[in-house]
C-alpha cells in the first residue's frame, strides 16, 4: 500500500483534517488521509517537480491494497455545461493516471416543479411556477486498486466545481474469510454447539 512518509502526515494532518471529505473516513483498512496534495500544490506554485526526491515522499506499507471491481462516480448539477467540462476533466485524469474507464454516460435529467402563490395574501388565481433541474453524469472506472482510487477520487473531489454534488459507489472485492472456509463443528451433524462463535 502506497502512502507518503509519516512525518509529512503528522505535519499536515491538522490542515487536512479540517478539509472535510466524506471519503473512506470510516474504513478501518486505510490510514489517515493522504496529504500529498498539499505538497503538490506548493510545488506547482513554484513550478518545481516532486519527483526530484521520490523516495522521501512515498512509503510503501505491507498492508494489502483493496481491489475495487468498479468505482462509479455520479455527479449532479444544475448546469449541463459545467458537467460537460467536468466530465472532460475526469476522463482525461483517468487516462493520464492509467485507470481503465468503463461507461461514461448521462442519466436522464430530473426536473422538480413547484407551483406557488404569486402574492403574499389572497389572489389564488395568480400563481408562479418554479422548476429545479438536476442534470447527472456518470463515470465508471473498472479494476482500480485502493491507492489509485484514493488518489483519483481525492484529486477529482478537490476540483469539484461550486454547485456540483458527487456520489461515489465503490464495489470492493474480498476473499472469503478464513472462518467461513470450513464448518467448525467437528462432529456433524447432531452435536450441540460447544465452541464460541467468532465475531460475537
Amino acid at each position, binding site marked *: 500500500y502506497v502512502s507518503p512518509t509519516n512525518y509529512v502526515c503528522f505535519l499536515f494532518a491538522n490542515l487536512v483534517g479540517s478539509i472535510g471529505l466524506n471519503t473512506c473516513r470510516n474504513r*478501518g483498512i486505510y490510514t489517515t488521509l493522504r496529504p500529498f496534495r498539499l505538497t503538490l500544490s506548493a510545488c506547482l506554485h513554484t513550478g518545481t517537480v516532486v519527483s526530484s526526491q521520490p523516495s522521501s515522499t512515498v512509503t510503501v506499507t505491507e498492508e494489502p491494497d483493496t481491489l475495487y471491481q468498479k468505482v462509479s462516480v455520479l455527479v449532479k448539477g444544475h448546469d449541463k455545461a459545467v458537467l460537460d467540462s467536468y466530465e472532460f476533466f475526469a476522463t482525461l485524469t483517468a487516462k493520464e493516471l492509467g485507470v481503465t474507464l468503463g461507461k461514461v454516460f448521462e442519466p436522464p435529467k430530473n426536473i422538480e416543479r413547484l407551483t406557488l402563490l404569486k402574492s403574499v395574501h389572497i389572489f389564488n388565481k395568480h400563481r408562479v411556477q418554479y422548476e429545479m433541474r438536476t442534470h447527472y453524469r456518470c463515470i465508471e472506472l473498472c479494476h482500480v486498486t485502493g491507492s489509485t482510487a484514493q488518489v483519483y477520487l481525492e484529486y477529482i473531489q478537490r476540483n469539484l466545481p461550486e454547485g456540483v454534488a458527487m456520489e461515489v459507489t465503490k464495489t470492493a472485492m474480498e476473499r472469503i474469510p478464513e472462518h467461513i472456509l470450513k464448518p467448525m463443528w467437528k462432529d456433524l451433524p447432531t452435536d450441540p454447539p460447544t465452541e464460541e462463535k467468532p465475531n460475537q
Partner: protein
Amino acid sequence: MAAHTLNIYMLSLGRMHCHIYGRNVHKALNRATYATALSTNNSSPNKGFPDRGSRGPIIRRPRREEGEPRKDRMPVDQDWTAVYPTAAPFRPGSVPLPVRMGFPVKRGVPPEKKGNLELIKIPNFLHLTPTAIKKHCEAMKLFCTEWPSALDTNVKCDEHFPIKIECKDYVSAGTSIRNPSARIVNLRVKLSSLNLDDHAGKKMVKLLGERYCKETDIITIITDSCPVRQQNYDYAMYLLTVLYHESWKTEAWESEKTVADMEEYSWEDSPSQKNALSTLVRMQIAGEVEGDAVRDKLLGRPEVQEYRESVIRLMNEGESESSILQYREAVKKLLKL
C-alpha cells in the same frame, strides 16, 4: 467673520441634505446655526459628505491608476498554469479570449467580458487545462499502484474474490459534510462459492429468505443498523459467518420436515408415483403375483423413468411448450397408446 462664513456653510449643508436625511439632521443643523458663537470648526476634508462625529473623517485613498492588463503582455508560448494555478474567479484582464456572455439587448450582442458578472458567477475550469491536468497527474502517479495483471476478467475476479462489498460516499456543499447514507454497507456473495453441502445449502436459503435471489444465486446482505460504516461491515461479516455455521448444523426438529417444506419436487413417495405404479400393475396380466419385486421391476423400466423425469420437470420448472410435450410423450409410452 469666520463665524458668519461658518453659518453660511452650515446652512448650505443643511439645505443640500435635509431632503435626504429627513428632519432630524435639519433640526440638528438648525440648532448648530443658532449656537454659532460656540460651534467648532469641524469641516471635513470631503466637502459635501455628512459629519461622521467621533468616527473621524472618511479617508478616501486616491485611486491608483490601472496598469496595462495582463492579457496584453502575454506571449503566445506562456505557461498558462502560472496565470491560473488554482481555482480562481474569472479575471477579464487575465484571460486573453474575447468572451461575451449574457442576454443581448435589442439588436445587439451579448455584453463583453469587462465587468461581466455572469462570467464571474459561473464556475470556470481555467485552472484545469489539459497541460495542467497532465502536470498534476505526473506528480500524482507516484502514489498509484497497478491492478494485478492476473485478474483481467470478471470471471477470474469472482473466482478468487467472491465477496463484493459496496459502499457509497457523498460529497456536497452544505451546512454539514456528513451524509447518514454513507454508513450503509451492501455485501454480495454467490452461494455457489461458499463451501456448503446439499442440506447446508437448502438450510441457508431458508434462513436467508428474501436476501437470496434464486435466478442469480446471489446473497445480498444490506446493513445500516450501526452508525459507523466499519461497524456495519463487521456486522455483515458476522451475519455471513453465523449463517454459514448454523446451516451446517442439523437440529433435532429438522427431521419433521414435511413435503410442503421441500424446495424441489421429488417423485419418490409422491402421489404421482403411487398412481402410476398402481395403474401399471392393473394393466399387467392378472396372472402375475403382486409383490415388492414387481414394483421394483416396474420402477426399473425405461418408460417409468421417462415419466418420472417429465413429471419432475413439470413440477420444478413450470409449464412450458417443451415440458408439456415431453410429459405427453412419456404418458403415451407408459400407457402404450
